[in-house]
């Protein structure tokens, strides 16, 4: 394997930054320092002015394979991930059929092993994501699955959720909850409020999410089993997580770029590209989610990358499926929310790489199975999963230029700051100069 030397970038560690060169040899970081000598055939990258950090890790990617390959495949999704600076993604199990058994998990891992980035799998908590009987978490854990979720819906029955938490704890795995009370969210298609009422659209109230967050905090107290909250979207949800964490409960939380970039007003024209669950909230909630990036309430930014075909997104708002693309613009939107040129690179990599890798147990100290290590320090000996991110470059989102098979981005035409220049996966350049290598 050829070597790569990244010159003169701002290397972002867990606690400090320093301008240095990074030498990658045989898939591993060989040296970090000033004016490194590189082997003669090394690929030289000029990273002046760029941040060099651990490759991004997405806790929440819908790759749609198996079942909905017309919207995305593991291969196409991994291209989108690479362009977005991600070196690892966690494939969500709400495929068709759901990833609730060893055969399907193995299929996704096998396909993933041929993809551009590392693909880890989240298993379903319950059979068929029906919220009734536990999926074989032990067998899946033996395969390397470390995160379990029925994402798309939350586990509605508190007794089932308690049982799942109790079962997961000794396995050393973490459950992740999509918090929405199914009865209260009902058939709603956007945030409940004055706008939904004026538009004649049935709403999903913030309380539908908050009730399940509150319930699950109590279940974590009862079971002492770690729990991760997916895509929290309201100020109340985040405040409850903060209070629970202050008590020492093992709770982590992610937020999604659309919840801190957009608000419900985007739905005013009935454009289903802005339909997502949980829905885009009020501007007050969106501001609270944005604040969670810096006040510590959010551990991670996760994309909830949810490809859908154009024909489905063309349906009337209430009939169209929920979800939007995320992988290719998440880093830029996070930078924007962190204050663009004022953004703290340490926080940026904590939110997009180090914390998600810790939550999903993808780090070297987690002894990963079937994939390399992610989210570590940029030091000699670490697996070379790296991203070179230019925090000053401007670009405009064009739906037709995205790598995803689907084009359901809510940001078409939007000007963004900050762009992934180079993505290095297991020592190989998969993105070079902003394009797939």
């Amino acid at each position, binding site marked *: 394997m050829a070597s790569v030397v990244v010159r003169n970038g701002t290397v972002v560690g867990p606690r400090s930054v320093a301008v240095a060169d990074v030498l990658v040899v045989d898939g591993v970081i060989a040296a970090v320092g000033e004016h490194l000598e590189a082997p003669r055939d090394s690929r030289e990258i000029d990273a002046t002015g760029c941040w060099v950090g651990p490759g991004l890790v997405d806790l929440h990617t819908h790759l749609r394979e198996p079942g909905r390959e017309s919207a995305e495949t593991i291969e196409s999704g991994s291209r989108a991930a690479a362009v977005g600076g991600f070196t690892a993604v966690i494939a969500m199990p709400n495929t068709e059929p759901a990833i609730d058994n060893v055969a399907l998990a193995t299929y996704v891992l096998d396909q993933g092993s041929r993809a551009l980035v590392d693909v880890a799998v989240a298993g379903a908590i319950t059979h068929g994501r029906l919220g009734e009987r536990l999926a074989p978490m032990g067998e899946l854990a033996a395969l390397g699955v470390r995160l379990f979720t029925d994402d798309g819906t939350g586990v509605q029955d508190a007794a089932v959720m308690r049982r799942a938490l109790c079962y997961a704890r000794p396995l050393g795995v973490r459950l992740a909850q999509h918090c929405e009370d199914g009865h209260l969210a009902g058939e709603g298609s956007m945030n409940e409020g004055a706008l939904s009422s*004026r*538009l004649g*659209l049935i709403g999903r109230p913030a309380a539908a999410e908050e009730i399940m967050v509150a319930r699950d905090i109590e279940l974590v107290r009862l079971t002492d089993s770690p729990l991760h909250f997916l895509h929290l979207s309201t100020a109340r949800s985040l405040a409850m997580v903060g209070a629970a964490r202050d008590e020492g409960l093992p709770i982590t939380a992610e937020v999604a770029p659309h919840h801190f970039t957009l608000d419900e007003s985007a739905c005013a024209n009935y454009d289903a590209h802005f339909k997502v669950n949980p829905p885009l909230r009020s501007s007050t909630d969106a501001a609270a989610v944005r604040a969670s990036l810096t006040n510590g309430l959010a551990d991670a930014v996760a994309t909830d990358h949810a490809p859908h075909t154009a*024909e489905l997104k063309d*349906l*009337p708002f209430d009939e169209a499926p929920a979800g939007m693309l995320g992988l290719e613009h998440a880093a830029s939107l996070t930078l924007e929310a962190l204050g663009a040129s004022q953004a703290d690179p340490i926080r940026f990599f904590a939110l997009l790489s180090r914390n998600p890798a810790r939550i999903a147990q993808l780090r070297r100290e987690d002894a990963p199975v079937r994939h390399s290590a992610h989210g570590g320090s940029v030091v000699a000996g670490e697996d070379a999963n790296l991203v070179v991110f230019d925090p000053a470059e401007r670009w405009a989102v064009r739906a037709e230029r995205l790598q995803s098979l689907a084009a359901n981005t809510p940001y078409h035409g939007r000007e963004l700051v900050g762009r992934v220049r180079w993505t290095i996966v297991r020592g190989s350049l998969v993105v070079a100069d902003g394009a797939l290598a």
Partner: protein
Amino acid sequence: MIESIRGQSLLSLNGVSRGALVEVLDTAESFVEVHQRTIKKVPALKGRVVASLFFEESTRTRLSFETAAKRLSADVLSLAVASSSVKKGESLRDTIATIDALGLDAVVLRHRSSGAAEQVSRYVPHVRVINAGDGLHQHPTQGLLDAFTVRQVLAERRGLSGAETGATLFDGLRVLIVGDIVHSRVARSDVDAYVALGAQVRVAAPGTLLPVDIETWPVEVVGDFDEALEWADVIGLLRLQNERGTGLFVPSLREFTATFGLTAARARRLRPETLIMHPGPINRGVELDSIVADLPAAIIERQVSNGVPIRMAVLYLTVAGANREVA
């Protein structure tokens, strides 16, 4: 603020100005006379094509629109969901594109999804789209014909034509809208029309049938129907939408009728001049007693017959656009 609907799509009454509303009412009044002719036709939209697309069950609105288009001499393409390829899985977008390929001037659209009319107007920006009811959102021509009917009756009582009164008869007019507000596109269009025309609007409904944002509406909420009976100049009843599961929002139809139905006992407490309206179809014995529906103050049939001139006016203004001559 929309100052005139001429040459525009009509998707909602939200933001339509008093002047624009009066223009529609006055235009409709000029079309009432056509109804009295032996040959009930004017050539205003001769050679124009109007598609009537009803993706949801409807008889009166559809017949009313199609009659209106024919009286204006437009060619009418009529598509009901049962006979369309929508049932074969064709998308709304493809259906519209197919019909548009036949050459269209206007689409009259009824759809069970809120916002469907606005979406269609994006698909075919060169075609005027008239919302004939979309989900829980709006039913603009119903709001217009309700206002038209009120003005017509009040003007008659004064021996005037509606057009002579402009919007003056609405100034301070006390309108009470009762029943399933939250699930009603008619309520949203009625409130927009009455408030823009200058009326005072109150609403009365069980707590479960009031919208979550009702405090932001330009209306006053009345907790008790009985308290507002004598206040009202106009009572607008709404259909309890059992087919949308509204029955689950009240303990029983019996209790709904007992608390918010216009029973014979309540009707006796109304001032004799108070108008009783209902957009139909009526659940007799639920929103109002059969006897009440047949009182002289109940102008429900007038609402139906006024549907035609109002829809003629809307088609004429939106399609013929800048041409100000009524043929």
